[in-house]
């Protein structure tokens, strides 16, 4: 993974000092809360329902054991013994005192971490494919370009006060696991005639007005990427709406301007760049950053592992975990494995300090020091030898980390909801737990197969309900919580926004309604090999809507 040189280290260290000064000026009253707010937000500090929340950046979701251990230490010392991994591959601590935050940032800086631009109206943490560098279907490892974008966007003086927040995602794989079409800018790395370039999508997003991104450019050569991004950012910064925060995202600018006119504006701005304005990233610098992401030194191994097969035969639970949580690796004899943070009845994305330390140790022992956070709020060890899987599983199981549900119905994205968030209209966590209980039987979930249920406690859509195959949105009706079901959303390369099925349901009605949708699917699918979303697309939504309201 990337390691800081003296420049990166100085920039982060100076930021800690700068923020320490800002906090002390806030605490002594020199800085007004209104003036402090954007400053603290640009350092990931939110004022939540109960306390300050600190969101720590995990660039493109990559950690190593030292970083994860430090997060565990922070959770133990400054929070309540756990952290919450987010849909943007970051981690949040919900109970940190404002006066302690400079010390937390200091501690993070010692392991090359920070909270820079994890909030605020600026360019946020760049996200990517959690299997980057290991996936069979990628044209290259996208992380070097994520790192280049991270550096370019860090403290960019022109784009620190954008109309609204700005999220960039990068994938290099045919199967889009980074949800690039629901980001402000989505980049798909392509190879054309031996050259690397970027297919650029712009103006996707969720929130109140969900939009699937428009393809802005088929192929921007890699050497021009940052200059092209500058052109998009400048058009957005100058012309994005600032009169209404709900209309300030770039998706609204693209929609209201029209895709063709928006493209013309970007092309004009890009063409107007003089040589003096170009970023002129030296080739040596591109090469330097790529070198940090060289594949780990994986010993050659046969494609099949006798150790693995013997262990599978002896332990059905292990066998299931292998079937469900394993993802093929580009090198024979290895796999990427998902560590589910969605145990039945747990809190989606939460990990205790003990669990973080177990994962750190296992990454050292079996995982070439590489750990990823997924946008579905799980962890991944991307490079594990098949021979090591039985031992790995045993340790994970001992830590409560061996839930076999990656991509299944109980692997839900769930926002913190009314239990934690001051924006929410309804609780999300208990609804998610009710649904998990309904489908807790592992045979049942595995029979259902791949199905994403996403739950948001309000229209800001942090739980990605618009792009869940089944989406659930909490709404408030005269002080009572209701839940609106949508069908057919997806975040992958066939990205789509779900359609609202009909009237909202009470909390008690939701689990049975979801069960009726899913049992309808099981009745109507051509075979167990046809996933829910395919059956839904083949037959249309009507039979599933009828199932939701069948109890009426």
């Amino acid at each position, binding site marked *: 993974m990337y390691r800081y040189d003296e*420049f990166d280290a100085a920039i982060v260290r100076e930021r800690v000092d700068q923020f320490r000064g800002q906090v002390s000026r806030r605490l002594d009253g020199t800085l007004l809360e209104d*003036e402090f707010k954007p400053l603290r937000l640009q350092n990931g500090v939110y004022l939540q329902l109960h306390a300050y929340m600190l969101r720590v950046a995990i660039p493109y979701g990559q950690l190593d054991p030292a970083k994860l251990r430090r997060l565990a230490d922070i959770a133990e010392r400054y929070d309540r013994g756990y952290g919450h991994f987010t849909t943007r591959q970051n981690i949040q601590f919900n109970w940190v005192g404002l006066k302690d935050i400079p010390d937390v940032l200091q501690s993070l800086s010692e392991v090359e971490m920070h909270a820079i631009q994890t909030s605020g109206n600026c360019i946020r943490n760049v996200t990517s494919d959690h299997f980057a560098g290991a996936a069979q279907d990628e044209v290259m490892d996208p992380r070097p370009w994520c790192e280049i974008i991270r550096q370019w966007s860090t403290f960019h003086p022109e784009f620190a006060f954008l109309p609204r927040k700005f999220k960039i995602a990068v994938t290099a794989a045919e199967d889009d696991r980074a949800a690039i079409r629901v980001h402000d800018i989505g980049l798909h790395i392509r190879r054309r005639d031996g050259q690397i370039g970027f297919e650029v999508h712009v103006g996707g997003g969720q929130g109140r007005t969900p939009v699937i991104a428009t393809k802005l450019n088929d192929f921007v050569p890699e050497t021009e990427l940052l200059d092209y991004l500058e052109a998009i950012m400048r058009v957005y910064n100058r012309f994005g709406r600032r009169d209404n925060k709900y209309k300030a995202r770039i998706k609204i600018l693209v929609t209201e301007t029209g895709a063709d006119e928006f493209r013309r504006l970007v092309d004009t701005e890009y063409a107007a760049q003089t040589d003096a304005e170009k970023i002129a990233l*030296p080739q040596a610098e591109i090469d*330097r950053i790529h070198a940090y992401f060289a594949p780990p030194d994986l010993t050659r191994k046969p494609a099949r592992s006798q150790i693995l097969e013997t262990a599978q035969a002896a332990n059905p639970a292990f066998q299931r975990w292998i079937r469900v949580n394993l993802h093929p690796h580009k090198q024979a004899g290895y796999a990427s494995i998902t560590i589910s943070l969605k145990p039945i009845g747990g809190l989606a994305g939460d990990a205790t300090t003990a669990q973080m330390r177990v994962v750190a140790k296992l990454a050292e022992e079996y995982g070439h020091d590489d750990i990823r956070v997924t946008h579905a709020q799980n962890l991944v060890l991307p490079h594990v030898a098949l021979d090591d899987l039985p031992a790995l599983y045993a340790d994970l199981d001992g830590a409560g980390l061996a839930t076999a549900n990656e991509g299944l119905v109980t692997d839900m994205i769930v926002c913190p909801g009314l239990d934690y968030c001051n924006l929410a209209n309804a609780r999300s966590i208990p609804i998610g737990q009710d649904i998990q209980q309904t489908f807790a039987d592992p045979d049942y979930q595995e029979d259902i197969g791949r199905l994403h249920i996403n739950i948001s406690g309000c229209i800001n859509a942090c739980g990605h309900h618009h792009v869940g195959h089944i989406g659930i949105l909490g709404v408030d009706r005269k002080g009572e919580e209701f839940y609106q079901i949508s069908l057919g959303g997806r975040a992958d390369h066939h990205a789509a926004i779900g359609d609202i099925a009909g009237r909202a349901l009470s909390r008690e009605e939701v689990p049975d309604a979801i069960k009726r949708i899913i049992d309808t699917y099981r009745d109507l699918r051509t075979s167990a090999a046809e996933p829910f979303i395919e059956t839904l697309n083949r037959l249309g939504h009507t039979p599933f809507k009828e199932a939701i309201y069948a109890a009426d």
Partner: protein
Amino acid sequence: MPLIKNGCVVDNEWTFIDDSTDPDGTGLVTVSLPRYLQDVTHERTRNVTLGVRLTPSDDPDLLLPHLDHLPLIEIEFPKYTDGRGYSLAQILRRRHGYTGELRAVGHVLRDQILYMNRSGFDAFETARADLSQVLEALSEHSAYYQPAADGHPTVFARRHLRPD
């Protein structure tokens, strides 16, 4: 309001005249962009030195024919969270090579001054930061990743300039 320019407190010799006021007499005045474009070639301006005050939605390209003899461009920040002024400044400095004074006016606060300076501002009209605070703000960072109007070499470039 105090004016800080190039690291010093200086007297503000300029006056902004809004569009409803007639510019009479002589002196140093800034006016809105539409009025500037109208008055710059006008008889009445002979005894007046004109500068211009841009609002965030103005098109800085319209100043292109006049940049060589413009002594002052003010860019207004109606609210410090309105970041359009940074883009205007970068365009004027980096694209159009403007070398006169570029002054931030309006809601100018200590913690935005570093970004303003990087974007090309060399003067700050602010009641919310004194000279020592401005100097402190300008020295908070020693390295920058991206190029900007301050001409500071980027980290991307500096990494490869070191004699190894």
